[in-house]
């Protein structure tokens, strides 16, 4: 039986809140993606070039991680609600905060040494 057929249908408001949360994760991923592509396309004078590539790639990779993680989190939340379990932990939150902090610090350093 597919996971979305197990258990019972939750209160639709909780399902919708979960859905909106998923979409918020997707928007965050897309914002990081745009940042990575923009950095790569327009920050052409950053030296050395490999550093720019690493920063941009890290942003794009973070976007991918959030897309996957956001979907898995949505599914885990929905299954938990369907089976009257508590919501699972969200490692995404600490992960995202760490990624943004590290990338921001790295970008600031790179800009400062130009």
């Amino acid at each position, binding site marked *: 039986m597919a996971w*979305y057929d197990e258990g019972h249908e939750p209160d639709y408001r909780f399902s919708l809140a979960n859905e909106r949360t*998923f*979409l*918020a994760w997707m928007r965050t991923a897309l914002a990081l993606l745009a940042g990575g592509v923009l950095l*790569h396309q327009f920050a052409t004078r950053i030296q050395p070039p490999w550093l720019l590539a690493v920063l941009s790639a890290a942003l794009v990779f973070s*976007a991918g991680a959030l897309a996957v993680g956001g979907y898995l989190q949505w599914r885990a939340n929905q299954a938990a609600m369907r089976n009257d379990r508590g919501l699972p932990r969200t490692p995404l939150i600490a992960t995202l905060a760490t990624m943004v902090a590290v990338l921001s610090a790295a970008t600031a350093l790179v800009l400062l040494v130009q």
Partner: protein
Amino acid sequence: MTARDPGLQPERTALAWNRTALALAANAILIVRHGIQADDTAALLGGMVLGGLAGALTLVGGLRRRQLTGDLAWAPAPRLVLLAALAVGLAVLGGGWVMMRTV
């Protein structure tokens, strides 16, 4: 569920889908821009596909609102959510492609 939801949940959900579609469209534009500038047909086509997906996400938002206000029969959300996740994944691949092509 056909009673009007005073919390406006269907509307808020549709708006969330719209905002996500906009974010996806912005990335699609970036990829199309690269395709035009670098004569990269793959990026051009891929960006247009992403733009189409962004439009699809907007339609999904409208569909969800109508489902949730009882105008349409309930359809399973998991497939729609998976579609959105795949669209974002495709955008990520597109972004990576754009970057690798200009390295």
